[in-house]
């Protein structure tokens, strides 16, 4: 049995999410082969070869894969994936975009956001915004799934020495083209990988007030997130959203500021180790999941927190 893991990368570096997927693949059992599909992606492939537990790295290096467009990636993964028992990708916006295409081309179903491996055919995943956990057995000849990174530890980034093999196949569907990107630039850690996350909600009142959270975050090396309400209100951009339809985070410490705690938001952060809630409404549902609750006006509490750290 061999498992194909599709690497998450930006051509230059291997993204941390790949390491969690490798751990999920190891839990299924079998040789773990990593596919790095990109353009001038040699550095990412080298990084993948060093990951502990990886037996082989396949590199598909072509302009057609530069932006990992779903149409091209779907065809490539379906073509290469035929020989594997399982195909895994991270449940990121990239993995979610191309993997269902590959599954459909292979005429198999797919499992999204897998959080536990029961055995080689059986997996658990959240449904209904995390209000229920389904354990599902698949009879498909090839099991295709995205893996929720927070549910699996990261494999060691160093220690492996996998062989790197070049893939000759070039799949260019010619259906779509990259136009442009607006990426958030920040010196703070990435939300999904951060050890500490400070998030703001509707209670922040406007985008300028998030400056208070940035100050706290920079003192403790935290990433800054937001609730859907804060994003919908235009306070901060969409890439900061934590929740069912945003990012799923599980840091050691999650500090929720001015967030009421809608189910939608809880689905994205309730696996955090320690949760702190700061809210002036003591009835806010966020306090039901918080380890430490502070009933206070955030405009007093947050500057005080910054000073106390």
């Amino acid at each position, binding site marked *: 049995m061999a498992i194909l893991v599709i690497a998450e990368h930006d051509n230059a570096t291997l993204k941390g999410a790949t390491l969690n997927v490798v751990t999920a693949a190891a839990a299924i059992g079998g040789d773990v082969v990593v596919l790095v599909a990109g353009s001038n992606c040699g550095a990412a492939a080298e990084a993948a070869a060093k990951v502990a537990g990886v037996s082989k790295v396949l590199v598909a290096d072509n302009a057609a894969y530069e932006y990992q467009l779903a149409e091209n990636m779907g065809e490539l993964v379906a073509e290469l994936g035929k020989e594997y028992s399982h195909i895994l990708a991270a449940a990121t916006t990239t993995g979610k975009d191309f993997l269902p295409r590959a599954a459909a081309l292979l005429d198999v179903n797919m499992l*999204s956001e897998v959080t536990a491996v029961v055995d080689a055919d059986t997996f658990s995943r959240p449904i209904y915004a995390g209000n229920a956990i389904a354990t599902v057995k698949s009879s498909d000849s090839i099991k295709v799934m995205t893996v929720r990174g927070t549910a699996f530890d990261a494999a060691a980034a160093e220690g492996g020495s996998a062989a790197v093999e070049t893939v000759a196949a070039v799949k260019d569907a010619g*259906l*779509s083209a990259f136009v442009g990107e607006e990426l958030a630039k920040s010196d703070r850690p990435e939300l999904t990988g951060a050890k500490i996350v400070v998030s703001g909600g509707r209670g922040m009142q406007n985008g300028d007030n998030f400056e208070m959270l940035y100050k706290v975050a920079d003192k403790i090396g935290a990433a800054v997130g937001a609730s859907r309400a804060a994003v919908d209100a235009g306070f901060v951009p969409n890439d900061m959203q934590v929740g*069912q339809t945003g990012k799923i985070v599980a840091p050691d410490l999650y500090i929720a500021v001015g967030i009421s705690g809608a189910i939608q938001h809880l689905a994205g952060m309730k696996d955090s180790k320690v949760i*702190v809630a700061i809210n002036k409404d003591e009835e806010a549902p966020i306090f039901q999941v918080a380890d430490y609750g502070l009933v206070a006006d955030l405009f007093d509490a947050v500057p005080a927190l910054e000073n106390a750290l």
Partner: protein
Amino acid sequence: MKVLVAVKRVIDYNVKVRVKPDNSDVDLTNVKMAMNPFCEIAVEEAVRLKEKGVATEVVVVSIGPKVAQEQIRTALALGADRGILIETEEKLESLTVAKLLKAVVEKEQPQLVLMGKQTIDSDNNQTGQMLGALTNMAQGTFASEVAVDGDKVNVTREIDGGLRTVALKLPAIVTTDLRLNEPRYASLPNIMKAKRKPLDVTTPADLGVAMTSTLSLVKVTPPAERQAGIKVGSVEELVEKLKNEAKVL
């Protein structure tokens, strides 16, 4: 340009779902059902395209039991022109749904297919992409902006790092994210008018699609509960607890 919108009948988003005591599934008896919120955004986008003169006809399709006609009528009340129900009582898996929609796409030949990025019951986020693969159409998933431009459509997508815009050849598939638009409410006259709009009923057999299943539900369990902790009296106390008790600072 003809626009096809796929919608699904799901549990109302305000209802908190409960797991059955025997862990066989979630309990949906007597639960309020509604159109999946992401599908509503897809319908709204299609209707706006029609109001702008870009779309000439908006066709709504749903797959499910007879009562799913309610959700099609809702879409018609929001401004869609006609509906198609693929009636089946069977449990639906994404691949089968994509195959059924492919049959509808072949029949209707839309230039644009709009659908929600995921449903709030199964949370799969797969069907649009699968339909794209089966019909060999381009896809723009998690869309926050859609601009039709001649024989292509520019779609701005919400991705993990921010926003990305792609240009897709038409016909194409777009799956909606939350910030694409804010769906309107149907007015009473439009609800009345919707009752007279055409709604065809067909079956998977009519479309030549076999209802196969490869995923079996072993069990459904409630998630691990989190206990509420303690209230602290001050910021100083909070920091002290985080340092010395939780040891996370």
